[in-house]
């Protein structure tokens, strides 16, 4: 009797908090509604009011179903946190895709869900058709999704809606952020938002001015600035154009985007440290070092490989077409300064391989970037070096190996193992994706490129992602983007809890 009471409680806890996350995100739809009104786009306005109504209703229903949780926040456990994150993301995928469906720019509900998951996970692969004729409201929404997804919907809800904060930390971790910047969770979430808002204002201003300089009119320059900044900062990679960043034909615009997407790929804890005056952190941090090394190597190797083809006549071309894309891939942003097919046709296997590796390594932990994360790569790498040194050194010496990440941390075996395990999970996800691609008829290089883009939440495409792609591949990609972004644990927890819950109910029926 007691057991079933507990399991019912878990469901209620999850429902309660997931409900708030859904409710909070649905409230954000007011922004596209306002955009639609200001742009006199009446049908999109209705689309968003409908979507908002549905989402808010569902969120409230979830909260009401779990209402007994109110006042009992102490009973929230880690697994609940993970499950809430995982469940919210799935529910929100179905709800936030309604505006796309109503707009008529997606061929199916599946395509709409794909685009939403692509946005939330800051991937950036696109199945929406005819981007150049999208309403301002829908464009505002698409780019907002990457910004919100990058920050984290759970983080969002925690900051602004949920009054109780004792269980809060557990939700926070469930969404892939594990840096406790300050003792309390709400404070941490607020700081993340402050840094993002400051950059949002500054970045939008810079892009707006740049837009004016390259020939955009003031109103559209502002909109593009907002979209491109959100996309860069979140390392999403969406743009309001079919040609992505090539629409602007501007080195200046590309360079500014590069600066912001690189900064955006850094750990929030790093921003916080540097903004508090600990500027040395910027150089000593293991992730920055890891990124600087791998990004530099990947760029140089790619430039070497591509300059041999003789395709790009000068340094500026090499920089704009090669370095830009390599960095876009490595930070898992996904802005493309080349057409998708050009990677397949012009880059050769060497170039493609470099991109695949860069995309899988990804950006920093606790940031909007995807991939293995530089932290894990750095830890595993140092772990290997430490093991070799231990082997070679005398048995009497007891050296402690450390690395620097906000503070000096001991390189413990447990830590190395945990990092390596997650890297293995990513590689399995990538491997299955590549295999599935080849089963569907795509070449190995194409399948690997697309699979790494999906697994690392990058968004660059070699041409596989399209509306005519097999549905099974679309579904797998959605699943992989989701799993990759939440870093596996949340989803495993959700699945685990669901299975346990079902088992309990089954057992009760047997008695």
């Amino acid at each position, binding site marked *: 009797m007691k057991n079933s009471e507990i399991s019912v409680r878990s469901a209620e806890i999850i429902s309660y908090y997931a409900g708030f996350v859904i409710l909070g995100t649905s409230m954000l739809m007011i922004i596209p509604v306002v955009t639609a009104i200001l742009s006199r786009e009446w049908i999109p306005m209705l689309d968003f009011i409908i979507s908002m109504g549905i989402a808010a209703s569902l969120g409230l229903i979830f909260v009401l179903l779990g209402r007994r949780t109110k006042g009992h926040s102490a009973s929230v456990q880690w697994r609940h946190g993970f499950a809430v994150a995982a469940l919210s993301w799935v529910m929100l995928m179905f709800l936030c895709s309604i505006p796309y469906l109503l707009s008529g720019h997606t061929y199916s509900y599946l395509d709409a869900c794909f685009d939403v998951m692509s946005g939330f996970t800051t991937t950036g692969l696109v199945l929406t058709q005819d981007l150049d004729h999208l309403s301002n409201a829908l464009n505002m929404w698409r780019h907002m999704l990457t910004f919100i997804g990058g920050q984290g919907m759970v983080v969002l809800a925690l900051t602004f809606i949920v009054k109780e904060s004792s269980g809060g930390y557990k939700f926070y971790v469930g969404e892939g952020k594990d840096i406790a910047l300050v003792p309390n969770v709400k404070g941490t979430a607020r700081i993340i938002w402050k840094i993002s808002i400051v950059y949002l204002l500054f970045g939008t201003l810079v892009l707006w001015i740049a837009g004016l300089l390259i020939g955009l009119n003031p109103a559209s320059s502002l909109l593009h600035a907002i979209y491109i900044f959100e996309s860069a900062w979140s390392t999403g990679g969406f743009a309001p154009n079919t040609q992505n960043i090539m629409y602007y034909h501007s080195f200046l615009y590309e360079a500014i985007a590069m600066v912001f997407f690189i900064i955006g790929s850094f750990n929030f804890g790093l921003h916080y440290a540097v903004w508090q*005056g600990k500027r040395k952190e910027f150089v000593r941090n293991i992730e920055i070092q890891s990124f600087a090394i791998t990004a530099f190597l990947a760029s140089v190797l790619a430039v070497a490989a591509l300059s041999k083809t003789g395709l790009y006549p000068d340094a500026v071309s090499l920089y704009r077409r090669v370095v830009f894309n390599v960095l876009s891939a490595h930070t898992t942003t996904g802005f493309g300064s080349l057409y998708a097919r050009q990677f397949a046709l012009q880059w050769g296997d060497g170039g493609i391989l470099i991109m695949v590796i860069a995309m899988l390594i990804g950006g920093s932990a606790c940031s909007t970037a995807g991939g293995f994360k530089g932290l894990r790569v750095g830890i595993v790498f140092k772990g290997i070096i430490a093991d070799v040194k231990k082997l070679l050194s005398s048995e009497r010496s007891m050296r402690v190996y450390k690395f620097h990440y906000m503070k000096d941390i001991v390189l413990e075996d447990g830590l190395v193992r945990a990092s390596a395990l997650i890297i293995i999970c990513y590689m399995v996800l990538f491997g299955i994706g590549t295999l599935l691609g080849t089963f569907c008829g795509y070449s190995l290089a194409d399948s690997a490129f697309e699979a790494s883009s999906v697994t690392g939440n990058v968004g660059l495409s070699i041409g596989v992602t399209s509306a005519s792609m097999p549905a099974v591949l679309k579904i797998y990609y959605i699943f992989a983007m989701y799993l990759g972004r939440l870093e596996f644990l949340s989803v495993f927890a959700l699945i685990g809890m669901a299975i346990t819950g079902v088992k309990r109910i089954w057992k009760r029926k047997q008695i």
Partner: protein
Amino acid sequence: MRLSKAEIIGLLTEISGVLIFLGILFAVTLLFAR
């Protein structure tokens, strides 16, 4: 929302750091373009 002096310097540090990195990469690209 107020920004303290440290926060502004922090912002500028991050931006300069990245610009320097990008600049070095450009210099290396120039080498290959010969």
